[in-house]
């Protein structure tokens, strides 16, 4: 506990103090700073270049006349005729005499599976983190943390296999589901993969809440439960939200588990016990067969761009929310 309230000088103050004390080290400092900055920019450049590359491969979808007629914006997003005597529908069937390229069932599938996963993983992960940081005795916390983090190390293909063989039968038998493989199953399996993310990030957020706040709460007569729920949890809310966003992003991009457990039928349906096909699983399942440079190829890259933008918007929105909240708290006079 006391280690949390030790005053730590700001890193910049340390750096400046160091360079003043040893003027001859200034050059080394500069070089190191340059190297660190360069490393940071490599990260940024990688992200930008990846986006540029996938966007470049997706571009013929909008520029090439033949591809544009096969996959116009209306064909990508609006209901289209698909069978005589049937109403127009949103169908994903890019390999066909008349390709049907609606991305709506894929986006819906991604949203369904990720929502189930996040809805299951966030309560469990946050509660576990709160327990670990506020209630668990030290020995238990030191056991709990590595074990939960070990779960993060389970390869997703193993989780997918577990879902496909064991979990699917158990879920179908206990809820009498019509489909063995469905969005719910994929979501449940994926929640196993993202609980450790939620747990780790939320736990870090809880531990950074200053100990003095807890002491103040106890001094006012607060119980441990009241302190945890009314003081620590609200104070760490930005961190917890960050955990949710990270989890959702990971869930939306997760491939192997959904490929194995979701049934992969590109359905437009609101039910979570129907099969679902996600964007990531579609890219993985269909990339092997496409002719490089064809419409289907550009289309899969376009799906990649959609996924990328989705995660970018998600992160940016969450970031803005967190900043606004921190500013409000600082405005209120809290440390």
């Amino acid at each position, binding site marked *: 506990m006391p280690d949390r309230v030790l005053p730590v000088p700001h890193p910049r103050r340390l750096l400046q103090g160091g360079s003043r004390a040893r003027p001859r080290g200034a050059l080394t400092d500069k070089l190191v700073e340059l190297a660190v900055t360069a490393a940071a920019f490599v990260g940024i450049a990688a992200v930008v270049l990846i986006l540029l590359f996938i966007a470049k491969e997706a571009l013929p979808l909008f520029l090439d006349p033949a591809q544009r007629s096969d996959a116009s914006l209306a064909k990508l997003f609006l209901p289209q005729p*698909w*069978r005589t005597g049937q109403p127009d*529908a949103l*169908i*994903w*069937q*890019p*390999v*066909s*005499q008349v390709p*049907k390229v609606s991305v709506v*069932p894929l986006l819906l599938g991604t949203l369904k599976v990720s929502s189930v996963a996040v809805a299951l993983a966030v309560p469990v992960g946050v509660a576990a983190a709160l327990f670990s940081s506020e209630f668990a005795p030290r020995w238990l916390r030191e056991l709990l943390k590595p074990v939960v983090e070990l779960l993060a190390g389970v390869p997703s293909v193993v989780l997918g296999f577990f879902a496909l063989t064991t979990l*699917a*039968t158990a879920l179908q038998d206990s809820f009498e589901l*019509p*489909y*063995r*493989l469905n969005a719910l199953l994929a979501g449940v399996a994926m929640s196993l993969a993202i609980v450790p993310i939620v747990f780790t990030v939320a736990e870090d957020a809880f531990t950074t809440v200053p100990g003095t706040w807890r002491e103040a709460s106890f001094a006012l007569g607060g119980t441990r439960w009241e302190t945890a729920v009314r003081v620590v949890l609200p104070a760490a809310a930005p961190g917890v939200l960050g955990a949710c966003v990270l989890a959702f992003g990971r869930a939306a991009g997760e491939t192997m588990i959904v490929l194995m457990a979701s*049934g*992969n*039928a*590109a*359905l*437009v349906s609101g039910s979570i016990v*129907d*099969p679902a096909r996600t964007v990531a699983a579609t890219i993985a*399942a*269909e990339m*092997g*067969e*496409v*002719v*490089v440079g064809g419409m289907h190829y550009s289309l899969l890259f376009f799906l990649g761009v959609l996924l990328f933008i989705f995660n970018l918007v998600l992160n940016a929105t969450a970031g803005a929310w967190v900043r606004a909240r921190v500013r409000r708290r600082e405005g209120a006079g809290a440390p």
Partner: protein
Amino acid sequence: MRALSVILALLGAPALAEPLTVKGSDTLVGLVQRWAASAMKEDAALEVQVTGGGSGTGLAALENGSTDVAMSSRPISDRERERLIARYGAPPREVAVARDGVAFFVNAENPVRALTLAQLRALFLGDVSRWSDVGGPDRLVVLYTRENSSGTYAFVRERLLENEEFAPRAQPLPGTGAVVNAVSRERWGLGFGGAAFARRVATLGIQVGERAIHPTPEAVRDGSYPLARDLYFYLPPEPSPAARRFLDFVLSDRAQAQARAAGFFSLR
């Protein structure tokens, strides 16, 4: 001794020509791997690598130049033929290497044992969706199909659905083995694939008049089973010598006997 021969093989490998790559149909991949093993045993200079991915994947790889031989469980499409002509300057060489019957699988507990082609068509198009519509219990039919790179998928779409789309709720799986496995676990499932793959599932007969025809060797060879098909190799117009040697082996009596042993049907 064994380790020594492995080391010798490794040392000797660079002296050999590039391995012959064969890619495509997941229906054929198991059989062609067996053929490759026997061919390499007979011909020490031959090295064959066989991978699956689906007929469409194999033909796309032939066009991209990343495979020497494409395996396909359906005849090449006009579009693919044109693209190969553009790539190689002449039409690709097509060789039928074995025959197969596409069988329909249901769970062993399903009381339905035979369906007409019209009933199968209505089920896979999604026009009817319950087993009670075709004389079974009142349960939802869980449809399994194959990923759209599969030749089996294209064959069933063309021959059964007359080029209409599969019902959107049909779940695509990555291979016939996966379909059989899924149907064996899904009590009300319905899937299809090469007749050779049936394990722990029931194979539906196809009702023609009074008779339910099963995909037996006789019915597939004489064409009375309605969904019989040839399985093909596609090669560039000027195949490499290694590809020619492998093709000669595949068409030999020994290789065709192996095909029969693996549950396929030989050409003769």
